[in-house]
């Protein structure tokens, strides 16, 4: 299901226009990404949690030319599904 299908389905369920729904979706996403950028964790009951994790720097070696690279540290968004959801798809 792509973005378009998703918003149209959502608008059908909510009884709103497509335009309003996509606006609401963007609001929600903006808000979530803002909170995540502020290092906040978002946990949604029955769905899972979104969390930003710091990956430390590491040295990786190119297997073909044996060149060693220092990969810098980075912040990564992780999603951990709730047990309820996990079990559902098992």
């Amino acid at each position, binding site marked *: 299901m792509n973005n378009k299908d998703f918003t149209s389905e959502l608008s059908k369920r*909510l009884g709103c226009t497509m335009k309003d729904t996509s606006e609401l979706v963007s*609001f929600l996403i903006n808000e979530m990404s803002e*909170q995540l950028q502020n290092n906040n964790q978002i946990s949604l009951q029955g769905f899972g949690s979104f969390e930003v994790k710091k990956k430390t720097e590491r040295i990786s070696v190119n297997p073909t030319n044996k060149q060693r690279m220092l990969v810098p540290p980075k912040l*990564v968004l992780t999603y951990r599904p709730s047990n309820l959801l996990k079990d559902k798809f098992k």
Partner: protein
Amino acid sequence: MNEKLNMQDLIDLLTYKYNIPKKNVELFVKEFFDLVVYALENDKYLKIKGFGTFKLIDVDSRESINVNTGERFIIEGHSKISFTPDVSLKKSINKPFAHFETAILNDNIQFDNVENADVSEEVVSLHDDDNVCPSNEPCPSNEPIEESHKQDSFSQEDGNSFDAEVADFYLGKDSVAPEKHEHIKTLSVEEIIAQEIKKADLEYGKKYKSKQESGLSVNVKTRRAFICSVTFIAIAFLSYVLYIFLNGDSNNRLSKNDLDSTLIAGSVKIPIDSGTIHNDTVHFDPTNKQSIVLNNKDDSIMKINTPPLETVDGTAAEFNKLDKYTISGTLTDYKLNEGETLTKLALKFYGTKALWPYIVKHNRSIISDPDNVPYGVIIKIPKLTEK
């Protein structure tokens, strides 16, 4: 920061921010996540623009061992949810660390190089030993040619024993040196320095060998004395030239590094000038030579140690001390005499060279270039109080 938000917090934030009725937002958020689950159930794939992709990934069944009982059992194949954030979201999340870049590490290579250099030096010293032993063929065969090239007067002695020949060769070279001097005078200062260093290098090699040739005749010993005196003269001349070179240069702020580069650049010419000499006797390796060149240069710099150099060297360390004192008025006025430097003044008034930057600080209007203060200038010596 580091708060844990739940769905209710999210709904509150949205209503507050966009002025939408709370009821609608609540309904929307719940429907949103329900639909995500629904879409995953049906399509196993959901892409939300600006957020990311949810996917159901099939996991094959695999065998595992129960840690407690040691029994083998099979984990059934199942599917799990994966989430890949959108590139834009990824970037905005990683913003604090965005300036980092993957760097290639060359440490290993550098380390190898250093090792190699050490090894080559050892090899060179071994070569030296070999050279002294008469069984080494190339030396006798090459040296006569070289010598006749250099100085005819010594060609008579070609028929002597090998040991004597080696000694002659050294002497021959040394007597060549004065000749070269006259030629060089017309050349640039760098080349003179290079020549001097080269001579010093050769003498270094000679000394090394002469230790092993302790069984040589008295004749050789007198020659060795002559060599020593020539070495001393050469070094003295080198330091004098360097001193002139540094003082005469209008740009007195010539840093040590610049000096290094000129010296090394000069020394590169050595193998070309007298490559045969090196090949014949000492088996000088370029790396080895450079290390010697460095030693030599350090010595000469130590001897000269002109104030400008000193200030450049110590600046970094000395500026650390700058925080300890404050300037509280002028202690006295002082006329800078010939041969005096700011560091000397600091030593005279404060007992340590390290505090010279305070003098500069106090005389901003008078001293434009702390490395080059003209004589006769009246300098205000600041009064320092400890913080």
